[in-house]
């Protein structure tokens, strides 16, 4: 029985006991008072009658008259005069006692009054004894009335006490519920603090739990800070602070190969005659130059949004911008700033040259690199501060926003959507779940397009909520059709959370298919989750309440933000390919990932690697503690 109910019961029982007890006590005392009053009346009336009769020489007629007169004028049950030898001389008894009081009540609470007795004498001779008993029906009526009033008063008092009791309980229950909620949250790995309850006992508990949560948070933050340092060291160029070559290649690979990639642009920047500058101005000045170039490159990335900037080697820098970018314009601006920045170091000839190219998703990494390299070589050959652009792949004929909107909507309506699937293996190679990205056919005859082709447009047109719900529905159906499937992962766009009807609809879907929704894994990309953080938090709670699992995909690029995810109670992380690429040759990333799996496991999160391309990588992942992996090497 719940504590709340027990408290209620205790209140009710103690109230009943108190009420019944007081009812009994006051009824009994009223009864004894009435009995005493009756006895007193009996005694007094008997004495008065005997006294008045003793004053006149009493004979039977006088006595009988006097007894009748008294009897008829008052409320008596019986009046008898008994002679000295015990013989009855006069007797008057009431026939029926008419009363409104129920019979059972009179039987339950009998009023026993003592009869009054007094001597009648004629001079010195004894005439007899008056034995007188008053009618008790009036006393019964009065007792009955007082009991009814008492019961009514008890009921009213009971109602008031019940109301007050429930108020008190509610006041008690509120802080109790808060504490219980916190405990529940902690078991769900959501490390939340609560406002300390006002009730002293609960305040201690709340305080202790808050302190524990704070301590966990501090420990977590400390570990995260150390890991962030490791990550930076492993993946960045120490001189400029930009990413290093291997990290950049991982990112580029990911932009080319990822299912949801919408392509991007690559810019390679070469500082001309670095060796000459080094000889002429010395090492320190050269380093200064490189730092300045690094700053300009980094600044360019900040102004143009999502992407990665890196120093590839001695004189080469690179920028990868995600999505459709007017790469020519970006390059012009960048060149102008670079020329200005490098001017103090350059005596003659060109200072920087750029090779650039925009790429659609799906191209080979080697092909893209070699073509942009060739463009750079051509720019260098020009002998001036210049830009050459490589033409990579064929661009689709551009469509208008209206056209996109119509096409995507009709695809959803006509069910031209489907899930494709990639296995996600656990550490032993067994199937953990299948990751299922959505593909969509714009026209009946068209080809199945991966997310990268339609998602950026869908995001701009705010159509992702419909797409995501379609994907969830397909996923749940698939789970229902295949009971042996251990799990199925669907990725959602964080921008769907902007749509107010998305979350209720999602919750409803999960509830409708609650039998299979336990096997559903839902993931959101790191960048999106951080951008729509409040919405994401609500999503996490809703998904967990629905019984499904929730995680972050492409995790790690904004690792320093891990503190924000820590208290949410996430079930898993899918670590971005850029940390996985060539892991077996990268001790820095091994250290980083080892730390990452350690702290993730400390709050019971699974860690899964994305884009595993070789068995060596997979083996190295197992060593650093990964729970699962997906990618081309995982079959």
């Amino acid at each position, binding site marked *: 029985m719940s504590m709340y109910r027990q408290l209620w019961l205790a209140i009710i029982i103690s109230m009943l006991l108190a009420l019944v007890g007081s009812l009994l006590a006051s009824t009994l005392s009223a009864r*004894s008072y009435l*009995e*005493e009053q009756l*006895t*007193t009346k009996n*005694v007094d009336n008997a*004495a008065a009658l*005997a*006294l008045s009769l*003793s*004053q006149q020489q009493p004979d039977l007629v006088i006595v009988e008259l006097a007894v009748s007169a008294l009897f008829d004028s008052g409320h008596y049950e019986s009046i008898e005069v008994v002679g*000295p*030898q015990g013989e009855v001389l006069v007797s008057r008894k009431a026939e029926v006692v008419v009363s409104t009081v129920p019979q059972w009540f009179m039987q339950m609470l009998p009023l026993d009054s*003592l009869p009054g*007795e*007094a*001597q009648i*004498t004629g*001079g*010195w*001779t*004894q005439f007899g*004894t008056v034995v007188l008993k008053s009618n008790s029906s009036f006393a019964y009526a009065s007792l009955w009335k007082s009991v009814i009033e008492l019961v009514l008063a008890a009921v009213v008092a009971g109602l008031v006490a019940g109301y007050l009791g429930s108020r008190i309980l509610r006041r008690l229950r509120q802080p109790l519920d808060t504490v219980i909620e916190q405990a529940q949250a902690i078991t769900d790995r959501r490390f939340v603090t609560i406002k300390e309850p006002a009730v002293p006992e609960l305040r201690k508990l709340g305080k202790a739990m808050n302190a524990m949560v704070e301590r966990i948070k501090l420990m977590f933050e400390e570990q995260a800070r150390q890991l962030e340092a490791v990550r930076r060291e492993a993946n960045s160029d120490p001189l400029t602070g930009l990413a290093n070559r291997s990290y950049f290649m991982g990112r580029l690979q990911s932009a080319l190969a990822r299912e949801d990639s919408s392509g991007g642009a690559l810019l390679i920047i070469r500082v001309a005659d670095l060796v000459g500058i080094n000889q002429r101005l010395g090492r320190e000045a050269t380093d200064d130059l490189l730092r300045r170039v690094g700053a300009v490159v980094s600044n360019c990335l900040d102004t143009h949004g999502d992407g990665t900037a890196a120093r590839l080697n001695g004189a080469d820098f690179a920028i990868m911008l995600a999505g459709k970018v007017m790469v020519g314009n970006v390059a012009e601006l960048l060149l102008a700033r670079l020329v200005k920045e490098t001017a103090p170091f350059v005596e003659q000839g060109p200072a920087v040259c750029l090779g650039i190219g925009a790429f659609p998703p799906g191209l080979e990494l080697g092909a893209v690199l070699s073509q942009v390299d060739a463009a750079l070589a051509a720019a260098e050959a020009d002998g001036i501060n210049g830009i050459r652009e490589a033409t990579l792949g064929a661009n689709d004929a551009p469509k208008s926003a209206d056209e996109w909107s119509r096409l995507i909507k009709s695809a959803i309506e006509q069910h031209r959507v489907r899930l494709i699937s990639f296995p996600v293996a656990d550490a032993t190679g067994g199937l953990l779940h299948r990751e299922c990205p959505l593909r969509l056919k714009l026209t009946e005859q068209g080809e199945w397009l991966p997310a990268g082709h339609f998602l950026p447009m869908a995001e701009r047109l705010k159509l992702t909520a419909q797409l995501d719900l379609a994907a969830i529905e397909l996923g749940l159906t698939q789970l229902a059709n295949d009971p042996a499937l251990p799990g199925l992962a669907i990725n959602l766009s964080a921008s769907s959370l902007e749509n107010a009807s998305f979350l209720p609809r999602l919750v409803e879907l999960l509830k409708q298919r609650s039998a299979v929704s336990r096997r559903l894994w839902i993931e959101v990309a790191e960048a999106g989750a951080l951008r729509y953080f409040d919405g994401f938090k609500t999503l996490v709670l809703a998904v967990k309440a629905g019984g499904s699992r929730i995680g972050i995909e492409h995790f790690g690029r904004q690792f320093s933000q891990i503190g924000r995810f820590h208290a949410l109670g996430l079930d898993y992380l899918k670590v971005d390919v850029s940390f996985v690429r060539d892991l077996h040759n990268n001790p820095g990333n091994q250290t980083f990932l080892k730390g990452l799996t350690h702290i993730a496991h400390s709050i019971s999160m699974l860690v899964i690697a994305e884009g595993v391309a070789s068995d060596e990588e997979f083996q190295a992942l197992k060593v650093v503690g990964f729970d699962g992996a997906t990618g081309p090497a995982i079959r």
Partner: protein
Amino acid sequence: MLFVACLFALWSPLPEALGFDFDRLRAALLERFDTTRLPLLDRWQQTLTIASTLPEAEKLIYINDFFNNNFYFYDDVKVWQQNDYWATPMELIGRGEGDCEDMAIAKYYSLKEVGVATEKLRMVYVKAAVHADAGPTTLAHMVLAYYPTPNAEPLVLDNLDVQIKSASQRGDLQPIFSFNSDAVWSGVAANSTRKEGTGQLTRWQDLVQRARTEGLE
């Protein structure tokens, strides 16, 4: 004969019937009065002891004489500074004096103690004609009446006329009202167990309770 009875009492053990606890009575007496009253109490004890062995007619005389000879008769106001106070036998012994009710009550207790049935005894309020110094007058008075049988003419135990006489010989007394203590006794008994602390006692009940606390059952 009295002498023989005294002798008999001296060497024979006290009859079992004696219900009064004289140790308690002594203690109660000393609590409120001084030791000079003890001999009177002892004499009362002796009187009761002897009277209990006598036939009923002689019991009456013996007890009546004891009280009439050993106590002064006064009006209540003087003795207790309170109008018409009913004193218990112990209070009577303690003071050595009392009024008519106190005497009647003490005689009643004593007779009851030596085995006279209480249904034969009546307390009687009487109007008494007396010859005071100022001339003849009447007095509100109380006597104890003894009825050998219910219909018989009673014997009167009085302190105005110390001789026990039959009612017809007492022309100076006009009975007004009498009460039989039995009904009141049972009333007191019932009161003490069932209706405690109500403060509603008749005068007789009040007396009985006070006497009981002193050790007179």
